């Protein structure tokens, strides 16, 4: 299962480390990391992969909790929504 993790918020020390720690704990592999500043906000996108049998709901829950303590918004979504919208064929 391909997952896209999106982090939006004010930049600070340790965001990547803490998000990566949650992903590692849940056996989610990070394939690539991209980041940009958009409208003054820190935007980071992580393309990830995990086994289909793992629970996306659990990863979402833990990331959301981590985001709260970091003061940023963290979202994890099944990658198919982006592939469907932006790729034909």
């Amino acid at each position, binding site marked *: 299962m391909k997952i*896209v993790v*999106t982090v939006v918020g004010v930049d600070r020390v340790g965001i990547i480390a803490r998000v990566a720690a949650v992903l590692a704990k849940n056996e989610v592999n990070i394939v690539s990391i*991209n*980041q*940009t500043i*958009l409208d003054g906000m820190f*935007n980071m*996108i992580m*393309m990830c992969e995990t086994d289909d049998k793992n629970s*996306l*709901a659990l990863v*979402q829950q833990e990331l959301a909790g981590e985001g709260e303590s970091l003061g940023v918004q963290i*979202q*994890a*979504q*099944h*990658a*198919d*929504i*982006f*592939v*469907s*919208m*932006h*790729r034909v064929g």
Partner: protein
Amino acid sequence: MLSIDNILETNRMIHDNKLDVRTITMGISLLGCTAVDGKTLCNRIYDHITKEAEHLVATGEAIEREFGVPIINKRVAVTPISLVAAGSDLTNYVSVAKALDRAAKTVGVNFIGGFSALVSKGYTEGDRRLIASIPEALATTDIVCSSVGIGSTKAGINMDAVAQMGEIVKETAALTAHQDALGCAKLVIFCNPVEDNPFMAGAFHGVTEGDTTISVGVSGPGVVKHALEAVRGKSFDEVAETIKRTAFKITRVGQLVAQEASRRLNKKFGIIDLSLAPTPAVGDSVAHVLEEMGITSCGAHGTTAALALLNDAVKKGGLMASSHVGGLSGAFIPVSEDRGMIDAVAVGSLSLDKLEAMTCVCSVGLDMIAVPGDTSAATISAIIADEAAIGMINNKTTAVRLVPVPGKTVGEMVEFGGLLGYCPIIEVSPFSAEEFIKRGGRIPAPIRSLTN
């Protein structure tokens, strides 16, 4: 490979422009539930719906979470009850409506449609009983929706049914007067009804459909408006292209959700309905899309042309994004459910006459319009007849969902709550059509029905 821009664009559509999937609707055939004994019939209907739709809401919520796209409604549409109950010993179908209401609440959906009759050409005994039961059924249930097909391009218009539906709308308003005639918001009168419409209040599961199907209605007027902001002042060629591209993206999300829901529930995928459905929330308005094209306030001259372009471009863009397109597919203009329409009525730019003109070029009809409580049954019937004539001649679906609010008059505000929204009461013509409606009989099918 996905680019960071792709991902941010999708999430911006969802979070800032209110992109959502408006509904996952499960169509369930009740033809196997028929019984002579009324009680047995109701029990079978309840059991069948609760079995088929048991996992609908949980599955919808799981898809919503995993993909991060809101799915606003989960709904059920059933075979027109006039057919299902026709062979029963019931003389009144209110008990069936109550069984539908209970079943829908048990499975957790927010509306169930199909308390319906199709009488374009004539009535059966089952149709008669169903239509007579509508006011009480809508007054004594919470989430049952009703629809009646009174005409079609192939059959013409059943003017006896048109006359009766004026009375039924008035009766429904009277029985739900304490809720500002909320019952009327759950009653649609159709010309050329479609059998796979996932949107309420007009959804029912037609007899040409299979046992159980999953259909999805997309939304996204906010996304279209945002996209058009980038082409301000540009030609209509660019406006149409922009809408098409946006509609394609919106529909792809609907297709994904429909496929997933169909796979997980192990039910056949029916159709995607490409309609742009508004909500009363800020930034989710079809009227604002038209205004973005350069109309100062929806309803001003130019509105019909703007809507025609929008409706056509949405279909063209959406068509290629889905394997099966159906339902109503077009731009909806329900007045009380669209912030821009509500404001347009309030400032006086949008009238009933202009809305009628707009229904010639879009789906679906005169929808969620509050009219004065003293509007006569004959006037409501005449409005239904006009709208049905537009549908019949133009070979398209048209519908009327009017709410004559008892005790209220032009300019006063009515609040229906939730997605049904709120709106000021709009003026109807004070001139009577009573003699016209009294004639009864049928308006013959038009020449264009003879296509064989």
